[in-house]
């Protein structure tokens, strides 16, 4: 006697299966692993201490230019982040997010002194990749096979002085890869918990922190370069807050074959007079 078909007895109804799959997919929506990889420029070492008053007495205008890929709302958010980091370093910062083609030109109120530095930020999407077949595979395997979406962006930074002369410009490139799926999320979580040390963990929060640190660090460094370049080209005009406490690398022993010993460093003091690193 033939055995009853076990398959026909245990197969769930198709509608329930689809519903279960939908529930699984929705439940896994946080199951996205975001990886950030710094490319050109973003990997460069940052020398300025982001907690020190590097821009004390400086008036800085930050303009974030929207584009097709980065709308005004997102650029406004970027501008606020940049403002916060520069204010933390002692600068007086004003931000603008021009809207429309005409407002790309800098508009200044009459009688208002130009800023010391003008930072312009604009973004470009260099590349995007999204393999459609992976979505099909992911659906077929209930997200055991992950989907992979990646894109490469460039953040262009131009810094000018108050008269509009270009002091510094650079393009900072980075890459974001997003994996979505139960399999990759579970594997990554296990690796984070059991294998990777703290600095090597890969998750959304870590990627955000690294990206912020890299981007804002590079912008601060470029702004500082612009500041010193402006001072050099203008013949070191006196500034509102004395630079006497800034470390000088000028020649203690100039024009000799041996390189001079640096002057004894004096750590910059905060407004409360306490020393900071």
């Amino acid at each position: 006697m033939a055995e009853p078909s076990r398959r026909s007895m245990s197969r769930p109804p198709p509608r329930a299966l689809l519903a279960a799959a939908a529930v699984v997919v929705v439940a896994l929506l946080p199951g996205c692993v975001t990886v950030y990889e710094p490319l050109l420029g973003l990997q460069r070492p940052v020398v300025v201490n982001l907690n020190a008053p590097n821009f004390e007495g400086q008036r800085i205008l930050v303009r974030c230019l929207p584009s097709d890929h980065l709308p005004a709302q997102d650029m406004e958010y970027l501008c606020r982040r940049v403002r916060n980091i520069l204010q933390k370093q002692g600068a007086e910062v004003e931000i603008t997010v021009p809207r429309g083609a005409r407002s790309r030109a800098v508009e200044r109120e009459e009688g208002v002194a130009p800023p010391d530095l003008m930072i312009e930020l604009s973004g470009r999407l260099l590349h995007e990749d999204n393999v459609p077949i992976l979505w099909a595979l992911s659906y077929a395997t209930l997200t055991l096979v992950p989907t992979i979406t990646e894109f490469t962006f460039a953040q262009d930074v131009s810094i000018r002085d108050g008269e509009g002369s270009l002091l510094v410009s650079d393009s900072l490139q980075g890459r974001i890869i997003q994996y979505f799926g139960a399999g990759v999320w579970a594997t990554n979580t296990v690796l984070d918990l059991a294998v990777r040390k703290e600095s090597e963990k890969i998750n959304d929060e870590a990627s955000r922190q690294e990206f912020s640190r890299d981007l804002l660090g590079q912008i601060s460094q470029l702004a500082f370069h612009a500041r010193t370049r402006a001072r050099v080209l203008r013949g070191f005009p006196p500034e509102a807050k004395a630079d006497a406490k800034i470390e000088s690398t000028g020649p203690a022993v100039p024009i000799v074959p041996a390189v001079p010993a640096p002057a004894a460093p004096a750590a910059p003091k905060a407004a409360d007079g306490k020393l900071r690193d």
Partner: protein
Amino acid sequence: MAVAQMTRAPSSAAAAALAALLASAPALAGADASATDAERLQVETLRAEIASQLQLQAYDLVDELIYGWTQRPPFGEPTPVLLADVSVPVGFGSGLQALLENHFASVILKNARSSIVLAHCPMCTELVVHSGARGTVVARGIDAPETLAAAGGLSGSRHALFLDFEVEGSALVLRARITSLERALPILFARTISTSTSSPALLRSPDRLKSADEARQEYLDALQGRSPLSFPIRLGVRTYAEGSNQVLAPPFPWLSGGVEAALTQARAWTASFLIGANWMPGLGYGLMGQARLNRLITGEVASLTRPDLYAFVGLGVLSINGNAALTFASDIPTLADLQAAALGVDPQTTFGTVQLGLELRAKNRVGVGAYVEWLPTITDAPMIGDYLNLGLIRFQSFGAEVTFCF
């Protein structure tokens, strides 16, 4: 150098992800300072590997410099030159300096056409003190040539060569200059040469230096001159899954040969056609025809320096003669079948196969592969079971093979 090729398609999801990445405070979390012994060992191993690579690249730069001198000598006649200083990259020690000095000396000695005759100057890097009317000056010997000349330290040479190596990101840069040892120390010759980690060391023979362009052209010729056709000889064995009667079929060895063609210059797609045969004493013989389509999955271009992994799909036709054919019969062989065989009437079966597999190929000369096979017409042979049953497709055979290409 890792290269990943992509295609382009715009989307606004990128903007959302990019903005989301700025959604937290820029915590300046310090790196984890502690490192286990295993991690330190790993770092040291990696550092040694990098140092070796850097040493070879530095040798390349020296070879390129001397090759340039053989083509355009800095002096009209053989001229003694002191090797005054070899500076290694910041962060590297005197070990590398000694290696570079020795390599430079060995190559320059074998290339007299460079017009450089190496002279030895042990006092060049020593401190010398000279007291005169204007005061006492303490300097390296090479920076005070008149003092060195007075002390007889120049060995009759009137020129000094300085080699400076520096790591600038992913590039190694050599800056060479020749200075005349007179009071003004004029620089007579200077050249900057750089290389990067993406270009492998040329490892030129010091007796027969050639320019980087010539070496690159040879490399391109080797790349493009690879014949699109090759002739593989393959030795393999097929095993079959245990059937319902719990009798294991014997493994079938196969020897095959044929032709393989690269469908693209990069050898990312190849196709092959082979015919094969086997003979098992007492069990009969077999004939086989097989066609495969291979796709490179470790990159976009077949490598000249490392093994390549191909995935393939293939179709085959096997004809088995003799008692071995009974393995594929739908009934268990009876005494009548064996009697027929004894009378000289050999059983025979022919069937088709579909293969899926992977092959690791080294320099397109030797390959090792494994595959699973579906026998679509063998559905109810009691001696043939399934290794992998996917419902519609049942993989009943597993094969392993070694391939030699000519």
